[in-house]
C-alpha cells in the first residue's frame, strides 16, 4: 500500500466512509454466505482476542502500576526479572497459580468458589462491546450503554458474595462497604453518561463514537460535557474501588477487606478483575467523552488533521485509555482514602445533585439548541 492510499484510507475512515463492521456482523455475514469455517474462525478469533486482551492488559497494567507507583515514590520498582522487570508480573502470576487455595472451614464453599468468577465475568462482558477501532469491536449492541451499566453493576455481586461467604467479620464489613459504595456511585456514573447519550442521540457505543466525528463530547457539549466527564471519572474510580475510594479493601482498616480469606488463583481473579475494570472504565471514558478511536482534529487545519489521521484508530483508543488510566493511578499514589460516611456524603450530597442539574442543563441545551459557548469544531 502506498503512502497516498494509506492517507486516503485514514481520511476516509475518519470521515466515517468506512462504516463500523463488528466481528459479530462479519460472523453473521459468513453464516449467510454459507462459509461455516470462516464463521467459526471469526468466533474463535473474537474469543481468543478477548482472552488475550484480559491476560495482556492485566499483566501490562499491573506492571505499569508498579512502575508508576515506584517512580512517584522515588524508587525503581521491579528491576530484576527481565529488562527493567518486565517479566515480574508473569513471575508473580506463576507464583499465584502455584499457591495453595485455602478455603476457610466455616465458609460457604459454593459461594466462596463462585464469587471471583462473577467478579471477573462482569468485567470481561463489557470488553465485548467496547469499540477499539471502526473495524475492531466484538459486537455492537444498540443499547450498548445500558448493557455496560447493567453488566458492570453485576460485578458488585461477586464482591458481596465473596465477602459474605468468607464468614469473616472484616470481609463482611468490606463487602457491605463495597455494596453501598458501588451501587451509590453507579447512579452518578449513569447520570454523567446520560449527558453523552442526550448529545449523541444514541445508546450504541459505536454510534456514540461516530457522533464525535466533529469534536469530542468533553468540549463540544458546551461545558456540561466537561462537568459530566469529571463526575464520570470520580464515580468510576469509586466503582472500581481505587484510592481514594478503596474503602472496601482499606488494607490498614480491614486487613484486606472482602478478599481477606482468598488466596492463590481465586485471589488473583479479584486482583485481575480490579485491573481489567480499570481498563474497562478508562476505555468507556475514552469512548464517551474523548472520541473513542477518533483522531484529534482542530477545525480547518487540514494539514494537521491529515497528519493525525495517519495514526491508526486503535492507537488513538489505546492512547486515550492510557491517559485516563494514568490519571486513575495518579489518584491512587497521591490521595489518602476517604472515610465511609464521607464517601456517602460525597455521592449523595455533592455528586448526585450536580449530576442531576448537569443532566437537566444538558437536556435544555440539546432540546432548544442553546449553545452558550461557541462550538469549537464545526
Amino acid at each position, binding site marked *: 500500500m502506498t503512502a497516498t492510499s494509506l492517507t486516503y484510507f485514514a481520511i476516509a475512515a475518519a470521515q466515517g466512509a468506512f462504516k463500523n463492521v463488528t466481528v459479530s456482523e462479519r460472523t453473521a455475514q459468513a453464516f449467510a454466505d454459507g462459509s461455516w469455517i470462516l464463521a467459526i474462525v471469526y468466533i474463535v478469533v473474537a474469543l481468543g482476542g478477548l482472552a488475550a486482551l484480559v491476560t495482556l492488559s492485566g499483566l501490562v497494567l499491573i506492571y505499569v502500576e508498579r512502575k508508576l*507507583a515506584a517512580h*512517584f*515514590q*522515588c*524508587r525503581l520498582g521491579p528491576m530484576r526479572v527481565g529488562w527493567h522487570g518486565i517479566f515480574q508480573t508473569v513471575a508473580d502470576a506463576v507464583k499465584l497459580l502455584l499457591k495453595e487455595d485455602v478455603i476457610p472451614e466455616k465458609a460457604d464453599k459454593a459461594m466462596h468458589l463462585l464469587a471471583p468468577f462473577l467478579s471477573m465475568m462482569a468485567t470481561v462482558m463489557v470488553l465485548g462491546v467496547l469499540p477499539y477501532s471502526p473495524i475492531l469491536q466484538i459486537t455492537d449492541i444498540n443499547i450498548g450503554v445500558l448493557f455496560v451499566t447493567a453488566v458492570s453493576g453485576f460485578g458488585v455481586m461477586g464482591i458481596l458474595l465473596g465477602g459474605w461467604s468468607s464468614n469473616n*467479620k*472484616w470481609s463482611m*464489613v468490606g463487602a457491605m*462497604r463495597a455494596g453501598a459504595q458501588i451501587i451509590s456511585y453507579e447512579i452518578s456514573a449513569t447520570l454523567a453518561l446520560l449527558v453523552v447519550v442526550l448529545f449523541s442521540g444514541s445508546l450504541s457505543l459505536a454510534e456514540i463514537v461516530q457522533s464525535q466525528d466533529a469534536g469530542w463530547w468533553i468540549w463540544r457539549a458546551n461545558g456540561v460535557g466537561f462537568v459530566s466527564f469529571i463526575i464520570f471519572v470520580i464515580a468510576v474510580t469509586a466503582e472500581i474501588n481505587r*484510592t*481514594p475510594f*478503596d*474503602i472496601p479493601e*482499606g*488494607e*490498614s*482498616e*480491614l*486487613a484486606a477487606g472482602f478478599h481477606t480469606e482468598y488466596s492463590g488463583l481465586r485471589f488473583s481473579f479479584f486482583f485481575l478483575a480490579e485491573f481489567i475494570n480499570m481498563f474497562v472504565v478508562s476505555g468507556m471514558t475514552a469512548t464517551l467523552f474523548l472520541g473513542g478511536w477518533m483522531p484529534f482534529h482542530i477545525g480547518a487545519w487540514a494539514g494537521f488533521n491529515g497528519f493525525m489521521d495517519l495514526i491508526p484508530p486503535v492507537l488513538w483508543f489505546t492512547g486515550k485509555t492510557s491517559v485516563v488510566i494514568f490519571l486513575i493511578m495518579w489518584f491512587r*499514589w*497521591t*490521595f*489518602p*482514602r*476517604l*472515610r*465511609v*460516611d*464521607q464517601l456517602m456524603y460525597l455521592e449523595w450530597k455533592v455528586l448526585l445533585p450536580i449530576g442531576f442539574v448537569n443532566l437537566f442543563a444538558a437536556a435544555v441545551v440539546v432540546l432548544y439548541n442553546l449553545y452558550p459557548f461557541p462550538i469549537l469544531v464545526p
Partner: protein
Amino acid sequence: MTVRVRTLDELLTPPAAGSSALSTQEYFVNMGPQHPIAHGSLRLVLRLDGETVKEVIPVPGFVHRGIEKMCEKLNPRQIIHLTDRLDYLSAVMNNWGVAKAVEKAANIETNGRIETIRTLMSELQRIQSHMLWWGVLGMDLGAYTAFLYAFRDREIISELFEETIGARLTMNYVRPGGVMFDILPDFQEKVKKLLKYLGPIIDEYDTLLSGNVILQERLRNVGVLDGKKAVALGCTGPVLRASGVPLDLRKLTPYGRYGDVEFNVAVGSKGDCWDRYYTRMEEIRQSMRIIEQLIDSIPEGPVNVLRASARISIPEGTYYDQIETARGVLGVMLVSDGKSPSPYRVHFRSPNFNNLWAVTALAPGWRIADIITIQSSLDLVIPDIDR
C-alpha cells in the same frame, strides 16, 4: 489503695441490640494482634454497631520482654542496652533517660561537650521519629507515597547515626557519665547539610499531605481530646500539647543544653487529630532550630567523665528522673539497696502506655476508619507499651 483488676471476660458485656430500625446486633471483633494497623502487636477488642465503634478495649502484652525485671540483674551501664528496645524510635533519648537518672543518683557531673552531643543526637532522633510517624500516618490513611517519602529522608539521619554510633535503630549511645563515641570530624558539616536539605523537604510534606482536602477531612474534629481529659489519662508529649497543655520538660525543667537555646513549644488548641498532626510537624521545625543553634557551639572536652571500667555505685534510696522523648515523658525510677551494683528495682514510666488509653476515650462514637486515624495520631510504639 486497692486496685481491682478486671479480666477481659468481665469487660466484655454481651452484645446489645443495635441502634438501627432493622433487627441488628452489636458485634465484637479483634483488631490485632496481627493486623496492619497494629504497628507491632497490639490487640484491640472492638465492640461495633455496624461501622460505628461502641467500645475499644486495648489488650497489650504481646511484646512483653520483662525489661524491668532484667534490669535488676544488670549494672547501670548495662541497663542502657535494654532501653533502646523500649521505644525504638527514641533510642538515644531512652538511653539518656536512664543515664540522667543514674547520674543524678550517683552524683556524676558531666561536661558541656557531652551534654551538647546528647542534645544534638536527641533532636536528630526526634526529627527522625516524627518523620517516620508522618509517613506511617499517611500510610494508615491510604496515602502510601508519604510513607516512602518519609523513609527516603529518614535514611539520611539514619546514616548519620550509623556513622557515629554504629547502629541505625537500636542505638546505645548515651551512657552514665558520657557518650560511647565522640562525633566524627565531619559531623557538624553533615548536619548542616542535612538541615539545609530538610527545610524544603518539610514544606514538601505539607504540600503532599497536610494541605490535602481528604486528609483534612479525615483529621479535623476527629477524636477531640480536651486538656483535662488528657491530663487525667496521663498523656504526655505531643498528644498532651496538642490538647493545649504546654507541658514540655525541655522547657519546664531544662536539661542538657535546652536551657541555652531558643525554641518554642508547639501547642494545639482543640486536641483533635489535626492538632496532634500539626503539633508534630511544628516540632520537627523547632528541633531543626535547636540543632541549628547548637551545631556550631560544641565545646571541647572529653566525651566521658568516667573510665569505662569505673564502678558506678548508687547510694541506697529511690531515685526518679524524667526526660522528654519524641512521644512524651519517659520516667525512670531506680531503687538501690546501696550494696549491689545493680538496682534493686527499675521502673519505666513509658509515654506510650499512657497515651494508648486515650484510644478508649476517643474512639467510641467514631467509625472503624477513625480508630486508625486516632491511633495513628497518638503515634504509639507497641514495644514501649509492653516493655
